[in-house]
């Protein structure tokens, strides 16, 4: 059997995938999801997505074989890695927590703090090739080695050629990035209890989650001021309508010097804009699957959802006896939306119940999103591939 057939072998019925019309990608979305925009120069196709899935999980695309995209964006962990702060393949600790790539097809800005990073195809080259702020996968300056590895690994020549038959040398860094991006756009979680509630399913949310939802979007807690929209990652504008752009907020996590300073390795949006008033501002992340993406916050230093609620209730985090001690509640750069609120233990539990209801367990264990490589006990890939599931 050819690698192409193996890669395209149908393992699971249903979307996402190519439908009856091979030129039209069937996203298989529920009715409350609209189709995402796809770059004109990187249309979706079954072959490309299958190739992208292999590349996403292939350890060969890190310099020492220690990392793949998929190991740092593991489905069971909400497409994150479970670390406080990500650790690169050479052991460097990243200043930030790993963002989920679930539903990334709809994400307007892709990183924690840089509003200009909008292209998935371009962004993924940063962990792959970049050296700042740390080496993640370590392929910077090793493009030739990467292409050699891809050329030498049996599935890839056939698969790249199938996707880009008109190109004389289809195995390229750009095409690899396009394939990975295409696959990442298929990582959709849209069937949480909250989704089923939105679609009118009675009893989809528990009583506690319903109460928590009321608190979450209610005026007292006001969580929805920053976490609104289908992905709970979009702020509301002054008119109460969903904003067109992502929001960047200082949520009062740090105040090192009493004047709003953040840890020196990451001052947030201010590092991009140069504006001190942007100190500590980070993009509001999606809360979908938030219960399984811990630890939380831009630097992973919030240990539980309960702690997160408590920090907001206090109007900022108080850190004592640690290197970056300070009272975030008094930071001059803190968003005025983080004003604090009163909340009882029962109410906090209800809010957490609502957050837990944002988990799409089916998607997180969907075999179509699983690592397609067979691996031995040590995690090293063996020379086989399980049939892939995109049809």
């Amino acid at each position, binding site marked *: 059997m050819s690698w192409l057939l193996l890669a395209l072998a149908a393992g699971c019925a249903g979307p996402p995938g190519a439908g009856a019309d091979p030129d039209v990608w069937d996203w298989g979305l529920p009715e409350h999801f609209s189709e995402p925009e796809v770059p004109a120069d990187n249309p979706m196709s079954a072959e490309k997505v299958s190739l992208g899935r292999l590349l996403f999980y292939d350890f060969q695309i890190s310099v020492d074989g*220690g990392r793949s995209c998929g*190991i740092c964006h593991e489905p069971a962990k909400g497409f994150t*890695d*479970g*670390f*406080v*702060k990500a*650790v690169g393949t050479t*052991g460097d*600790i990243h200043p930030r927590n790993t963002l989920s790539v679930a539903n990334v097809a709809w994400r307007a800005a892709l990183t924690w703090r840089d509003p200009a990073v909008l292209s998935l195809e371009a962004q993924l080259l940063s962990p792959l090739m970049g050296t700042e702020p740390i080496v993640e996968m370590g392929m910077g300056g090793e493009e030739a080695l990467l292409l050699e590895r891809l050329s030498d690994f049996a599935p890839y020549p056939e698969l790249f050629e199938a996707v880009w038959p008109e190109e004389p040398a289809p195995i390229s860094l750009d095409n690899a990035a396009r394939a990975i991006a295409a696959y990442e756009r298929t990582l959709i979680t849209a069937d949480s209890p909250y989704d089923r509630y939105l679609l009118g399913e009675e009893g989809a949310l528990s009583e506690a989650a319903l109460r928590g939802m009321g608190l979450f979007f209610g005026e007292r807690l006001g969580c929805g001021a920053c976490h609104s929209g289908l992905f709970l990652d979009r702020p509301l504008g002054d008119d109460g309508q969903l904003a067109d752009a992502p929001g960047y907020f200082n949520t009062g996590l740090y105040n090192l010097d009493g004047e709003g300073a953040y840890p020196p390795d990451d001052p947030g949006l201010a590092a991009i804009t140069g504006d001190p008033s942007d100190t500590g501002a980070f993009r509001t992340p999606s809360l979908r699957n938030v219960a399984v993406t811990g*630890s939380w916050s831009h*630097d*992973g*230093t*919030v*240990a*539980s959802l309960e*702690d997160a609620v408590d920090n907001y209730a206090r109007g900022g985090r108080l*850190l*004592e*006896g*640690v*290197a*970056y001690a300070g009272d975030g509640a008094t930071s001059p750069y803190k968003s005025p939306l983080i004003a604090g609120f009163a909340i009882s233990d029962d109410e906090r539990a209800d809010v957490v119940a609502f957050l837990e209801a944002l988990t799409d367990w089916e998607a997180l264990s969907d075999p179509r999103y699983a690592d397609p490589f067979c691996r031995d*006990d*040590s*995690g090293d890939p063996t020379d086989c591939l399980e049939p892939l599931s995109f049809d």
Partner: protein
Amino acid sequence: MNTRTLLTLSLSLSLGLLGCADEKDPGADDPTNTATNGDTTGDVGGPGADGEDTAVGEDTDASGDDGGTDNGGTDDGGTDGGTDGSTGDDTGGTSDIDQGPDDWYAGQACDLFLEGGETILAASSQSDAGQALITPSEDTIYHIERSVEGDAYITLEVPDWHVELRAFANPGTTYEIYKTGGSGTLMLNGACPDEGISDQQWTIHDWGSYVIRFDASSPEPIYFAVMEQG
């Protein structure tokens, strides 16, 4: 706590009971060492005694089921149910000091102990443990500094799967590691002259962040090193 596996380590060593590196296997040469510790159960005696008891940590409770600490030394049956700290009841005897492997890792740890550590300010609560990150390193020993009296918390980021880790600490240090899910073996290693070091080995199956709690009863200063074996 209900979803994590708790691996509790509790070392309670007394400097006066520890041998020197040039006195390998004192249990073999001086069986009276066992008695100096008051150990009377058959759990101690070391390789010198029966040639099979390779590690005092055989009793280490890695299941986490009871969250208890079985210090690996003589078990008088009264210490499970918590991190019992340095009660001395479970103190490993002199015969145990060199039961850990006298290998490169132990030697490296010993050298690091002699050089002094890189200071890291530990958190005083589990919630803030993410403020103090370390990773396994063959070149670093950490001086775990406490800003307040009481338990101290740090986070160990383990960036590989299916790894064998070796942790070394100064005598008397009591610590526990959350959600390791691995089996650990507690050993007391005589690689360092005079003082010895505690030597713990365990398997990490799943990479990620692991909180380590140092019990308030631990001595000041705490020195701690973690290395990835293999």
